[in-house]
């Protein structure tokens, strides 16, 4: 009997504590939020002035260095939000404040932490700050045990924007713990046109994933020279997935010179390649391809016939 009373009392206590937690949590968060807002009010204008790239950067940095730790913690979310909205020297100024306050050291330490969520968060922030010294650590994280951390590290390397990251990014597509092609492609695009030579080299990689991802990134970054490279690769490519990526890139680049080669792929033996060709022709908008697209309406795969119909509709609209 004594045991059952104890069990019932424990369950009742648990219920009452959980019920009390609801208003208590609300009240505490509300109070803490208000206090934080008030504390951050002093720092907010300084951060905004720093992000606005005024000529008083040194003075602002010195003033932010004098801010107390509690006020700094309160202003930190504002700083993080600004990091994602700034580029160039404004971003560098904010990163310098973070470095001065020891944030970068803490983030680097967090990248070795046990929690994948915190490692991912740290990688995101190092990238958002565009902090070049964090590049090596982020490159190491490309082989992290957690796939989300690997993807975050790839995106962060893209944000830092050093073209030297192109090679490790392409390498990370293969191996024991690969990074998915989408984050790598997004990161490669962020590296900018300076990474184009590495991407052209990537088109000749023995790894099909590296070839297709290089092609996808060149579709955003590339120019007329890259159209030639992509067409040449398309001619020789044996992997269907890579041909699909190359056709997508050619469609994005929109060069009329590629119309013939893309139209020819409407007769490819692989249905996914034929669909990619129809979609690319829709992007291209070249009237000379209408005849080939009309023929593709008879494709045995209904999805391909629909892609051809959509492309024809786009041609009519353009």
């Amino acid at each position, binding site marked *: *009997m004594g*045991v*059952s*009373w104890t*069990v*019932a009392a*424990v*369950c*009742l206590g*648990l*219920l009452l504590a*959980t*019920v009390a*937690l*609801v*208003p208590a*949590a*609300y*009240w505490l*968060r*509300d109070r803490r939020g208000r206090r934080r807002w008030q504390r951050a009010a002093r720092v907010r204008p300084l951060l905004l002035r720093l992000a606005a790239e005024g000529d008083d950067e040194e003075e602002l940095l010195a003033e932010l260095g004098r801010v107390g730790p509690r006020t700094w913690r309160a202003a930190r979310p504002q700083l*993080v939000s600004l990091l*994602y909205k700034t580029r160039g020297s404004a971003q560098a100024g904010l990163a310098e404040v973070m470095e001065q306050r020891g944030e970068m050291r803490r983030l680097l330490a967090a990248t070795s932490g046990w*929690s994948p*969520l*915190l490692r*991912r*968060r740290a990688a*995101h922030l190092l990238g*958002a700050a565009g902090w070049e010294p964090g590049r090596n650590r982020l490159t190491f994280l490309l082989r992290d045990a957690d*796939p*989300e951390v690997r*993807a*975050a590290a790839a*995106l962060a390397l893209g944000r830092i924007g050093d073209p030297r990251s192109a090679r490790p990014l392409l390498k990370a597509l293969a191996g024991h713990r*690969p990074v*998915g*092609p*989408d*984050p790598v*492609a*997004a990161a490669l*695009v962020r590296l900018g046109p300076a990474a184009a030579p590495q991407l052209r080299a990537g088109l000749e990689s023995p790894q099909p994933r590296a070839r297709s991802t290089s092609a*996808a990134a060149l579709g*955003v970054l590339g120019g007329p020279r890259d159209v030639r490279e992509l067409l040449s690769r398309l001619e020789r490519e044996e992997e269907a997935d890579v041909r699909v990526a190359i056709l997508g890139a050619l469609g994005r680049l929109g060069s009329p010179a590629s119309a013939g080669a893309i139209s020819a792929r409407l007769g490819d033996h692989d249905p996914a390649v034929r669909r990619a060709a129809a979609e690319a022709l829709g992007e291209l908008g070249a009237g000379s391809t209408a005849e080939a697209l009309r023929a593709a309406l008879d494709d045995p*795969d*209904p*999805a391909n*016939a*629909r*892609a051809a*119909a*959509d492309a024809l*509709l786009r041609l009519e609209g353009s």
Partner: protein
Amino acid sequence: MDWFVTLVDGLGWALVLYYLVAALGALALTLIAAATLLRRRRAGEDADEEAFANPFSPAVSIILTVQDIGPDTGERIRALLGLRYPRLEVVVVADGVPEADLAPIVERFGLNPRLWIGAGLKTSARVTGCWSGRGLTLVAATAKNDTDALNCGIATARHPLVCLTRIEAVLDGSALLTMVAPFLDDPGRVVAAASVPRALDGSKVVAGRVTEARAPERLEDRRGALALLRRGLINGVARSRLNATTDLPAELSVYRRELLSGLGGAGPDLALRIHGSLKGGDGYRIAIVPDPIVWVPLGRSAHVVRRRSVPGPISLVETPWRLLRILAPWANRLLFVYLGLAAVGGVLALTGHDGVNPAVVLLLLAFAGLVPMTVTAAGLALEVLAFRHYDRVREPVRLLAAVPLHGGVS
């Protein structure tokens, strides 16, 4: 009378055993969900901006089925088209709606007639008309049922991700960015993502968006709101963590189109079919997005919740839980029988006979009453701690008043 007391006590102990296992399971799920949500909050999320800026964010087709054109149908479609996302299309399947009723939608969105070509999925729906323009495709069809109409929409969809939603669901402006974030974070494994719907009743809606979240007025509706939180924030999040998701809310969920095509389309037991088709593969994940991004009126949602019974075990983690759910209706009925018999036993005790064991009654009160109430209250506490989308403390406190109404094993 000894035989009567022995019988009642035997039944009581059997029920204690059942409710003890159920209570321990529910508490374990609560702890897992709390750890997941609070850690997630600590880590912070900036995925929305990343998805928006990423040129390779996968394009999304939003599929919607309607059985009639109401006064707010156009507004709901406009709200879907206005979702913050780089590349999206909305496919509306008007199931059994006369063509004349579709004219206001065609006119409002400036749609042009076009040939309907379905691809990737067989559907028995008979398509009678198709219009498109400005990212919207309207398909007039006659389908056998809701699933058939949805599959007609999936066959119409052109993009690699397919988002299923309902006309009565109200979405946050960034809902799609938040739903697609798991696909970007873990592109190799995430095959589906489902949301945790919140109760719309009582909240303020302006231009198809919730501008102020409030607790429902009626006590019964507040009970429904708590049921949604418990199902989504406790069961949904914890099961997703254990990769044993069996509930995919119809209010808002996103799938890889290839996966749906391979499974033969949407339909009942979709989560189970996903587990069945991918088991033994390289590893996959069904993500549960706990953020408050979708609101639903309770009447419809309660109906959907009731319909979602999932037979057959899917994993070792899921097996005991499934067994408890199968036993739950019997246990709840037997509990009432036991309480009636225990009351008779109490009367007998007053006449000098042996009464039923009071320890059994106490333990049943604890495991069948107090623990389920604690889990329900924990769902609300997690909502406040992790998201706090109520502007006033009054709203969660009003929801607390309905906690005693929502007990039992679910």
